[in-house]
């Protein structure tokens, strides 16, 4: 899912950085308004590590091979902190294991981070929509939705970015069909990440429910 260097035109990379810069400013402002960063950073650090490792876990979905993204779980557990955690995770992935790239850091952050923040908002809907339900039900259902939606959105952004920037010298049809195969492989991943988010949220609900209450 990470876009490496040299795939996207320079304007798109610059645009990615510009959007990522704007989001970072907004998210940091929200973080300062709603919480005490010193208390939340350990949690964010742990999940940044999980995010870092997640992309090294390959899942074969023939004919392609995909990897976990875990942006949904980060949104659910970290709230606004998901953004800086993803940004740092992506930076470390680019520098240490060559996953993604430095020119595409902004684009990748937008691609995975914004869906994570949307996942966070989806998870918060449990307070309104899931009012009459039991705690386990509302947390479970909305965690699943948050995980699946965050991954699905990230995959859609990836698809859009690549499909609209295929260079003319490539065989466009061939690239499109390869891309479509990759996108179809992400449908099962939506369920896998949704279920992972659900299990993580239910586990936290049992052992430390206050971790799930991100002010927002």
């Amino acid at each position, binding site marked *: 899912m990470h*876009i*490496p260097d*040299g*795939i996207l035109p320079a304007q798109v990379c610059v645009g990615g950085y510009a959007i990522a810069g704007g989001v970072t400013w907004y998210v940091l402002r929200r973080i300062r308004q709603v919480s005490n960063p*010193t*208390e939340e*950073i*350990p*949690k964010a*650090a*742990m999940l*940044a*590590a999980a995010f*870092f*490792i997640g992309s*090294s876990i*390959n899942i074969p979905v023939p*004919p*392609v*091979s995909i990897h976990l993204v875990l942006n949904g779980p980060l949104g659910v557990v970290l709230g606004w902190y998901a953004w800086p955690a993803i940004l740092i995770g992506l930076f*470390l992935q680019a520098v*240490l*294991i*060559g*996953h993604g790239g430095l020119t595409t850091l902004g684009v990748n952050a937008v691609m995975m981070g914004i869906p994570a923040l949307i996942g966070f908002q989806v998870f918060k809907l449990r307070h309104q929509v899931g009012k009459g339900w039991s705690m386990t039900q509302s947390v479970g259902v909305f965690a699943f939705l948050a995980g699946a939606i965050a991954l699905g959105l990230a995959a859609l952004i*990836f698809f859009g*970015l*690549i499909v609209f920037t295929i260079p003319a*010298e*490539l*065989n466009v049809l*061939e*690239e499109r069909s*390869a*891309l479509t*195969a*990759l996108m179809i492989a992400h449908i099962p991943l939506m369920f896998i990440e949704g279920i992972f988010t659900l299990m993580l949220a239910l586990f936290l609900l049992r052992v430390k429910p206050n971790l799930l209450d991100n002010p927002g």
Partner: protein
Amino acid sequence: MHERNGLAIIGGSLLGAIALLAGLPPGARAHGVSVQSRTTNAVEIQAVYDSGKPMENAQVQVYAPDDPSTPYFVGQTDNRGRFVFAPDQAGDWEISVRQAGHGKIVVIPVESGGAIAETFTNDAGLTPLQRGVMAGAVTWGCVGTALYFRRGKV
């Protein structure tokens, strides 16, 4: 562009020559065709994903040293992620391999005569051990940060 690629391969093999003949339209076969061959140096690349899986049918573009904007050879990797081209001039050849938004650009220095310069070494990537150590270090760094802040709270 594809034809150019085909020509590059016949340089070395009879099989390529047959492929060229078969590729001609029926009308043209009636006319005399001469196929010449010569031995040439070719460069073979192999593209694999970092999971170890070969990049099958990935699109390859090869740019000659004197023109970095128009691909000189265009083709696809085979089912083992390999692609062969015969450089016809010395200099830095740029090869772009790409599939479904994933890919890489490498520069291969070629000497006159078509051999890869001796100074060139393949990017071996990271061994699983290196990856493991790095992942462990980063994880521990994050856990350490967490422990540090936890201690501060007590």
